């Protein structure tokens, strides 16, 4: 049933996503040409009109990501809490499957949107020339530089170091992967809670909850970072031996692992809190 739910959830905004993605990708070479024009006449420039258009392009990329994100959340809201809920919740599908489908849909669209944005930027950079090197585009130069740095790094370090770096990179990627779900689960929870708190003004309540959380969470996050920095500073003074060579690397790996565990716990709390509301407190108008 998850496959079927996903099919319809993905399909519901696919046409709009495709239209916007195609527009972005079609405009990318134009952005590249604008960047090229800007770079080529950099020396005798009087009015940098290309910059304004490129800023417009950046705004378009941002707007594309925002529109898709908003559409995904609107779809969650209408599908679960408006009249469409009468169909959704009478399907022979468990609420956890319905909810999982929504979470996966948001994640898939997030990933696809980021891929389109990166492709668009890469296309523009592939057209714009690198003035410091002849016959090189900005993308070519960046890739060459990255390849050189990576090659130099790999040849200069031992196999053991490469393994450690692979572990750290894996942990960082895992942390990013888990965090991508946190954003979706948090917004879904805000919508679910907002709808159950205020039947008359669910959208306003949702926005209030998101705003409140966005005000409180960064404060908590900064408090945690400061605590970590000061704690690490104090620990360095007290136990200097623990912060040298292999011990430091082990500590970094441990901190990243703790980060992954914390994010997983937050995700699970948001998951069960939202699902609990959907299963026990759902009362459509």
């Amino acid at each position: 049933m998850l496959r079927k739910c996903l099919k319809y959830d993905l399909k519901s905004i696919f046409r709009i996503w495709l239209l916007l993605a195609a527009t972005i990708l079609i405009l990318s070479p134009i952005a590249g040409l604008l960047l090229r024009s800007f770079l080529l006449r950099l020396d005798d420039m009087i009015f940098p009109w290309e910059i304004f258009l490129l800023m417009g392009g950046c705004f378009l990329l941002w707007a594309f990501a925002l529109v898709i994100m908003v559409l995904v959340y609107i779809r969650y809201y209408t599908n679960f809490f408006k009249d469409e809920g009468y169909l959704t919740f009478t399907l022979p599908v468990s609420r956890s499957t319905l909810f999982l489908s929504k979470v996966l849909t948001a994640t898939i669209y997030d990933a696809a949107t980021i891929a389109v944005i990166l492709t668009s930027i890469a296309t523009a950079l592939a057209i714009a020339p690198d003035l410091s090197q002849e016959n090189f585009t900005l993308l070519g130069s960046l890739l060459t530089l990255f390849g050189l740095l990576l090659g130099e790094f790999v040849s200069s370090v031992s196999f053991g170091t490469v393994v450690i770096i692979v572990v750290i990179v894996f942990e960082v990627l895992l942390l990013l992967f888990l965090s991508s779900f946190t954003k979706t689960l948090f917004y879904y929870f805000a919508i679910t809670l907002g709808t159950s708190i205020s039947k008359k003004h669910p959208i306003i309540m949702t926005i209030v909850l998101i705003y409140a959380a966005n005000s409180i969470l960064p404060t908590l996050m900064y408090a945690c970072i400061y605590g970590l920095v000061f704690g690490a500073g104090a620990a360095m003074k007290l136990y200097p031996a623990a912060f040298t060579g292999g011990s430091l690397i082990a500590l970094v790996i441990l901190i990243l692992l703790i980060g992954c565990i914390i994010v997983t716990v937050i995700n699970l709390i948001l998951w069960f809190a939202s699902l609990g509301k959907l299963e026990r407190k759902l009362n459509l108008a």
Partner: protein
Amino acid sequence: MNTPVLMCDKLCKSYTAGLPVLNNFSLSLTRGKIVGLLGPNGCGKSTLLKLIAGILVADSGEIKICGHPRSEQTNALISYLPERPYFQPSMRVVELLDYFSDFYADFDRERATRMLTDLGIPQDVRMKTLSKGTKEKVQLVLVMSRRASLYLLDEPIGGVDPAARDYILQTIIGNYDPQATVMITTHLITDIEPVLDDFLFMGHSGQILLAGNADEVRAQHGKSLNELFREVFRC
């Protein structure tokens, strides 16, 4: 086969504390009946159907469908028609047929296509372009094209013209399985009366004021259900 298709036991539901819409409501329905759930506005008819369909969660009490406690599995046995359109407006009628075919194993697509053709509803149009009455017809066609054990129809003829009402009533009679039960709520008692086997008059808080076989009660009182309704619920 003797298991009731629907069993409600001491159901309680209130939207506001201290004001129960349903208070200890109990009901048992056998198979093969068309049952009219009749009562004044606000007596809890729609609330009862929503509780059975799983749209609302009861404060207390138990609901069993074909002997199984209400759950998403029992949704496969229930075909529910709410009083409002519940489709994504951008979906085409044909996409709705796909949707029902995908999710309901008991959906008879051929029957649905035939009924849509009879009603002159094209399949390639989007729901948002249809009138309210046509949307209701599409919804009814989809709901009645399932081979469910229990049909819950909330005001199925409320928003359609009298000519379409006849077709809809014929659809309800002609399409339900003899082993299934249809539960209908409506205010248009005169229209629905000829098709009802049984009926329930629901008073406030879900109190059952009068219930029984429609023919027997008509013979006993010498009045139609419509006349009885006016008498029981006189303001």
